[in-house]
C-alpha cells in the first residue's frame, strides 16, 4: 500500500525520504543521483525506493468521490 517504513533487508529507515525522492524524479532528475544525494548507498535500500509502488493512491480516489457524492446529496435534499 504505502512505501515500507524500513528496508526489507537491512532495516534502514527509508520511508521518510520517499516523498522527496518521488518529487525529484518527477521533476526530471536521474534516479541514481537522487538516491546518492539522499545518502542511500546499499542496493537493498535503493531497490526499495526504485521499485516502490504506492497502491493506496489507486484506492483513495474512490473514497474522495464517495465523499463528494455524499456532500452533493446532502446539499440537494
Amino acid at each position, binding site marked *: 500500500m504505502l512505501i515500507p*517504513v524500513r528496508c526489507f533487508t537491512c532495516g534502514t529507515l527509508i520511508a521518510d525520504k520517499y516523498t522527496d525522492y518521488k518529487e525529484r524524479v518527477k521533476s526530471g532528475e536521474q534516479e541514481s543521483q537522487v538516491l546518492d544525494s539522499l545518502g542511500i548507498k546499499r542496493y537493498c535500500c535503493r531497490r526499495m525506493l526504485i521499485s516502490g509502488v504506492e497502491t493506496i493512491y489507486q484506492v483513495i480516489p474512490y*473514497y474522495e468521490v464517495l*465523499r463528494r457524492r455524499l456532500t452533493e446529496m446532502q446539499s440537494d435534499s
Partner: protein
Amino acid sequence: MNLSINVLQETDEKIVLQFTNMPRQYLNAIRRISISEVPTLAIDDVVILENSSVMHDEAIAHRLGLIPLRTELNKFVLPQHCDCNNTLGCSKCRVLLILDSESTEKTRIVTSGDLVSEDEFVKPVSMNIPIITLAPGQKLKFEAYARLGTGKDHAKWQPTTAAIVKDGNDANESILIIETTGSLTPEEILKSAVNIINTKLTTLGDVVKNLDFQSAI
C-alpha cells in the same frame, strides 16, 4: 602486543573503528551483540480506537512498530525486568504515544510527526515517515505503547542496520563498522554491547566458580 582502537569515521548514524591486535572473535561478539541484544524502544501494543482508513488495524500497527524511536537506555528497563507487574506497564517500562487525526476537506498524509509522545525525549527519529493516507471523512485514532526490546525478539528492536567486521590494511588489524537506525547513537550501541558481554561473562564466571566438580563424578 598492545591493543589499540582508532576512530576512523564518526557520524550520527555510522561509526568506523580500527582495531589493532584485537582477536577477531571478540570483535565479532561485539558486532553480534549490538545487532541482537542491545535494547531499543519500539511501539509494541496498539489500541486502535477508531480506524476508517483503507488499511487494516494490523497493517497500521505493523508500520508503527517499525518507526525508530529515540531511546534513552538508562531511563527504561525491559518489561520482563520491571517490578510493576502490570500488563500495560509503568513509566519505567513503557512510553505512551497517541495519535488523533481526521481528514476533513482534502486527502491528507498522516506522518510520524503527528504522534504525540508522553516522554519529551522519546520521539520518532524522523517526523516525515508516512503512517497512512486519509481520504476526506476518514479517521484514525489510537493509543500506542512503546517498550524496550531486543533484536532477537523482533527486528523492529534492532538498533543497528549494517554491522560489519572486516580485515584492515595491515596484519593484526580489523575494522568494525556499525550503522544505526537512529534510535541510539553508534557510541551508545558500542558501549552497551560491551557492557552486555561483560555481564554475560561475569555471570558465567560466577557459575563456574560455584560449580561443585566433585559431585559430577
